[in-house]
């Protein structure tokens, strides 16, 4: 018999529980039964929860305790005990003599400790970065809030002025209109006298126009048909359906039609609808396989299993499947994912500017028309640059200037009567247009600022700097772009697929969620989860598609370098160090 006392005595939690055995039977931990000392580890399962067999494989629900001196103690499933595979680094799980497990705890422990130390170092440094960013974020937010109240004031002033100008403008326009109507009346009276019958048929005109449109439509279609090898083949096939020679030739088609690589992407050309009319009652043009070339037929039929269809037709097909949008692939997948731990992240110091560049590029894309200053911190750069054209004169604020101009104009056209002074009217209109354009700009600036500050930047605003940034990662032929608070996409050459729009943070700010991306044929709308890890830089470390059209990315960021977590790691290291066997110095 094997002595398990050793195993048990090291388990401080269980020690108290098993102590009871010395004075007779004790209850299984789940309370279901009782067992005696003789039944403890007697290789027969008495307690359904396995509490009588902590050292054997007898209970399917049991846990085996490895002391793992030199490393950390561990509970393993009882299914691993004496199964011929070394699980505990101290080899204690294999004691039936069938296999010999070397004690690797020191080596394993050393590796683990080194790994942990590195991780701690990353956290320590990351925490500093994070603090700095939080400070900056707070300043920036304060600045933006100030900006908002300033803009609000300006908006108020400007609104009033615009209103005044509008009234004037309308008055002028009213006068002009009156004038025009009067003239028209006179003109009409004169004309009526002139001509008696000359009425153009509006209806006819319309028909002509429609016909024209139809013609061009047809013309376009014919153009398409002529370009499409599929239809050519189809027509031939149809005409010569009885001709066997023709058919056999068609069998050889694949080689020829490989000259048309574009078919590859669109296995189900839509434009052969014309042929459907030939007596076949099929509705779905893509499934009209009757008249396809051999290669196309192969592609079309094969595509059913592959789910490769053009996005357009898919909408109706896949619409039903959207409902099951649950989180099947929950946190389990990545928790153990090797290589995603933050400690992997501290291995590169290169391309410091990568994200700056990406950032500005992105801004140009997305805030087209706005002049963006990429070098400054983004908090106020947007706002300032936005008004660059109007703030050329410094001294009197531009609002004052506007007010003055308005007053001046109003004065000059104060008492007008028909006929309207054209130059006055024009200048009022111009001023009105300018003022209201300015107002629109302020309003939009204000709303975008408000919008921005409405975002959830995290408990400590640690994600503030993510706003307006995009993180990129290249995986094979794809470039993935993750833009927090906005959207995520997959770019291949010139085509962009939306993986999702910004949805929210999840999982206590450890996950970013992008949902409702482009629809997937035979699948859900695309979506992306971004798991966040502590790292010194913002960096996408991996991206994956574990289920079709459900993407998963990992992003290292200082924002996740949390003090509590550091403390936890330090405690863990301390425990590990404590477990180190005496006299086992660094080799």
């Amino acid at each position, binding site marked *: 018999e094997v002595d398990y006392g050793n195993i048990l005595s090291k388990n401080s939690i269980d020690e108290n529980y098993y102590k009871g055995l010395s004075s007779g039977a004790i209850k299984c931990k789940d309370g279901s039964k009782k067992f005696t000392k003789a039944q403890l580890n*007697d*290789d*027969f*399962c008495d307690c*359904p929860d396995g509490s009588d067999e902590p050292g054997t*494989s*007898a*209970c*399917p*629900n049991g846990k085996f305790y490895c002391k793992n001196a030199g490393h950390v103690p561990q509970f393993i*499933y*009882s*299914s691993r005990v*004496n*199964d*011929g*595979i070394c699980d505990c680094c101290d080899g204690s799980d294999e004691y039936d003599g*069938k296999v010999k497990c070397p004690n690797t705890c020191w080596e394993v422990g050393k590796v683990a400790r080194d790994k942990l130390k590195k991780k701690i170092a990353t956290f320590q440094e990351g925490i500093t970065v994070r603090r700095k960013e939080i400070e900056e974020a707070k300043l920036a937010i304060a600045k933006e809030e100030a900006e908002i109240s300033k803009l609000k004031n300006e908006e108020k002033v400007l609104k009033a002025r615009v209103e005044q100008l509008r009234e004037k403008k309308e008055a002028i326009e009213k006068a002009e209109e009156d004038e025009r109507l009067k003239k028209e009346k006179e003109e009409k009276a004169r004309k009526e006298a002139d001509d008696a019958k000359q009425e153009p048929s509006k209806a006819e005109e319309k028909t002509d126009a429609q016909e024209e449109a139809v013609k061009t439509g047809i013309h376009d279609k014919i153009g398409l048909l002529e370009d499409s090898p599929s239809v050519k083949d189809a027509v031939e*096939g149809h005409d010569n*359906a*009885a001709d*066997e020679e023709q058919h*056999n030739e068609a*069998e*050889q088609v*694949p*080689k020829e039609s490989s000259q048309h690589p574009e078919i590859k992407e669109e296995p189900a050309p839509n434009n052969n609808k014309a042929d459907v009319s030939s007596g076949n009652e*099929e509705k779905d043009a893509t*499934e009209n*396989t*009757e008249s*396809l070339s*051999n*290669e196309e*037929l*192969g*592609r*079309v*039929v*094969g595509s*059913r*299993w592959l*789910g490769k269809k053009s996005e357009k037709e898919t909408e109706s097909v896949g619409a039903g*499947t959207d409902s*099951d949008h649950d989180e*099947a*692939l*929950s946190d*389990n*997948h990545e928790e*153990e*994912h*090797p290589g995603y731990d933050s400690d992997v992240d501290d291995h590169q110091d290169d391309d410091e500017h990568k994200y700056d560049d990406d950032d500005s590029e992105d801004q140009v894309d997305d805030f087209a028309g706005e002049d963006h200053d990429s070098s400054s911190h983004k908090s106020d750069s947007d706002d300032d640059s936005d008004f660059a054209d109007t703030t050329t004169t410094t001294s009197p604020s531009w609002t004052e200037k506007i007010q003055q101009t308005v007053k001046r104009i109003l004065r000059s056209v104060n008492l007008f009567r028909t006929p309207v002074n054209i130059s006055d009217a024009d200048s009022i209109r111009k001023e009105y247009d300018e003022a209201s354009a300015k107002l629109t700009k302020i309003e939009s600036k204000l709303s975008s600022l408000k919008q921005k500050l409405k975002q959830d930047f995290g408990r400590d605003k640690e994600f503030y700097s993510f706003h307006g940034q995009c993180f990129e990662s290249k995986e*094979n032929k794809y470039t993935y772009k993750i833009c927090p608070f906005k959207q995520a996409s997959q770019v291949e050459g010139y085509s962009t697929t939306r993986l999702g729009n910004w949805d929210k943070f999840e999982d206590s700010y450890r996950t970013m969620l992008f949902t409702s991306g482009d629809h*997937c*044929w035979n699948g859900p709308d695309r979506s992306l989860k971004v798991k966040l890890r502590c790292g010194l830089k913002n960096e996408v470390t991996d991206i994956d598609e*574990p*289920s*079709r059209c*459900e993407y998963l990315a990992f992003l290292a960021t200082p924002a996740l370098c949390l003090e509590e977590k550091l403390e936890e790691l330090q405690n863990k290291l301390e425990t590990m160090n404590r477990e180190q066997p005496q006299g086992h110095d660094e080799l």
Partner: protein
Amino acid sequence: WKKEEFRDCNQTPFCKRARSRKPGSCNLRATDVSISDGDLIAKLVPKEENPEQLHNNKPLVLTLSVYQDGVMRVKIDEDDQNPKKKRFQVPDVIEEDFLNTKLWLTRVKEEQIDGDSSFSSVVYLSDGYEGVLRHDPFEIFARESKNGKRVLSINSNGLFDFEQLREKKEGDDWEERFRSHTDTRPYGPQSISFDVSFYGADFVYGIPQHATSLALKPTRGPNVEEYSEPYRLFNLDVFEYLHESPFGLYGSIPFMISHGKARGSSGFFWLNAAEMQIDVLGSDWNSNDSMWPLNNHRVDTLWMSEAGVVDTFFFIGPGPKDVVRQYTSVTGRPSMPQLFATAYHQCRWNYRDEEDVYNVDSKFDEHDIPYDVLWLDIEHTDGKKYFTWDRVLFPNPEEMQNKLAAKGRHMVTIVDPHIKRDESYHIHKEALEKGYYVKDATGKDYDGWCWPGASSYTDLLNPEIRSWWSDKFSLDSYVGSTKYLYIWNDMNEPSVFNGPEVTMPRDALHHGGVEHRELHNLYGYYFHMATSNGLLKRGDGKDRPFVLARAFFAGSQRYGAIWTGDNTAEWEQLRVSVPMVLSLSISGIVFSGADVGGFFGNPETELLVRWYQLGAYYPFFRGHAHHDTKRREPWLFGEKNTQLMREAIHVRYMYLPYFYTLFREANSTGTPVARPLWMEFPGDENTFSNDEAFMVGNGLLVQGVYTERAKHVSVYLPGEESWYDLRSASAYKGGHTHKYEVSEDTIPSFQRAGTIIPRKDRLRRSSTQMENDPYTLVIALNSSQAAEGELYIDDGKSFEFKHGAFVHRRFTFSSGKLISSNAAAPSTAESNLFSSECTVERIILLGLTPGAKTALIEPGNKKVEIELGPIFIEGNGGSVLTIRKPNVRIADDWSIQIL
């Protein structure tokens, strides 16, 4: 499902013609009857010349032979073979051993039947049975000798027709067109059809593969509404098949088994690989022009084939197990699988790369869920070129396999029959140079379209090509493979995306000028065979192959497992999986299962769990999913559902010793692992059309839960003895339908009173680590407080068992005493060649009168305690009397007396 892409009977001229024939239209009579070479020989000639059917006026030759164990074979072929074309006779299916069991006929008895003007020839068939050739009207049947009662007959309705080959005449248009495809049919019409009658039968079963009820519903007759189409046997890759249709799916076995209360079972097999259509004729189908007094207990069927010859086998039964034994004596016993292959398989199209594989593998460990095999679908290859690896995704395939093997696990990769026409692909280059491809009607290499694009197909009818193919599986040739790697054959119908009905044209040409139409249903069989032989060669004949295939034919049971193809994640498909598996099972293919979870679509969590609970009892147990579906590995649905799926899989692992014993039984007798209830309870009429429940062996009854949020399930428990609920341990009466309360934990499963079932209750990572684990014996006593059961053990991988390296125990319990004895005939098992160190840790006694406290073990005179224990450690099940730690060795003789 694209109905219009497939031909129905009316679009299939031979089928339409045969179906329109009137009973009694056969005008043949038998003449020149004689005995030659131990066979009964006769000529079939027209009674009067039929000027309209000149071509059919030549005599046909009939050969009737008799084999041991009640098998009668009847062949009919043309007499003067057309010099240009011989009709195709299916080679490589009939067992050599079977041919050696031929009984040498020496005597023919003449007898006048039913007042016929001419005699009939009667021969001995087996004890109590005779074979009869009735000369005029022409009819062949097997009958009971003592009372002359027919068992099984051909042409009792006079529907026999045989289109003889003929010269093409001016103006003959033999081409057939379907959609954009033209079949040149250079040899013209050559179909065969005839009626087969099963007497004393209430139902007929078999002829897989169809997604239908197990008891075949009539396809013709006055009250037939369900089907207007006959059951089709034509191997096709059917996209999203329906759950209720006589349409032919991936494989074909022209074997039918009848069963009835009046007599029992008989079976009929037509060895013919061309397209076949089979009508099951409803009672009164021919009431208007009946030739025979109607018999309630008789089922008439009409068999139609496009080409080939008549080569039929009559199996007289009389029990269902007798029929499958007789049938598998002809087409081969199911191969003995490796132990690991009977455990749980994890598949998905596709585990993307090595990291994905490692992750899935470690997740099973992390969640303590056992599995044995991880599968890689087509995406693991370099451009769908089989035997290659995508080296970006799988840079180190050997290392990957070895890492999994270190945990006792295996891997499977897919190898399909379509070969990419790519000059740089070594397989294609060789096949091209050697001229190994199937040819099109003009003699050029047939060029079809499948996953890789333009593809050709090796001509596996040719033994030389099969041998070449087999060599591709050697570790040297298949770079990146290891001995832990096994094979999956998909698309072997063959599936050709741009072919007629998604398969190869019928006028494509094979070795020896055989047209594809003549062997179509055999193509997948040959591919399966060549692959299986490849693994056999790889292991130097010592390692049992494991090959899963989709297409199959009669005899495929010798080459591996079959699954039910691309099913869908729907409740109805869960339900139909049971009749589909049973239909395969009774047709020799005992190692089969459906994709757990459903291939297409996303199963609701509840459906997935129910599927695991049922799938755990399929003979072949694999989870699989289409690549458009969400991930569905068992741990992705929350802790509660993980637990439920873990338990379901664990149940399978517990019963592995039982399953393995059943596989060995199938291997020696053909009796399937999964059995229809009527196979175990042939006298219980309530079971005849029940295909919601099935038996695993003779001891377990399992019923799926096929509806959402079910609270109750109606379970019929057959026979007179009780049944023990495997969760609560309570007894249920036999011969009753019970309203059984179900929870999410489990599906109804019962152990039959009178049986002893061996289990291994300890949970392990995979079956490999269970080798030394102790057994639990579950004894369910019948009303006479008796029970019996068996256990078979061998090394789980090699062929040494064929030389006696196995342990085969019989356990019997009576008069309060359990006895373990050797079940093997002393000559077959050599006790020194294989033994097991395993012990029995627990004996569970169901139905024992309470009060027993101890038991006495002999030899050794050792007393052990009897106490209350759980029936299933993980569940919250009932308490049962348990003999604690008898610790007897499983391989020894011993007895345990309850005191």
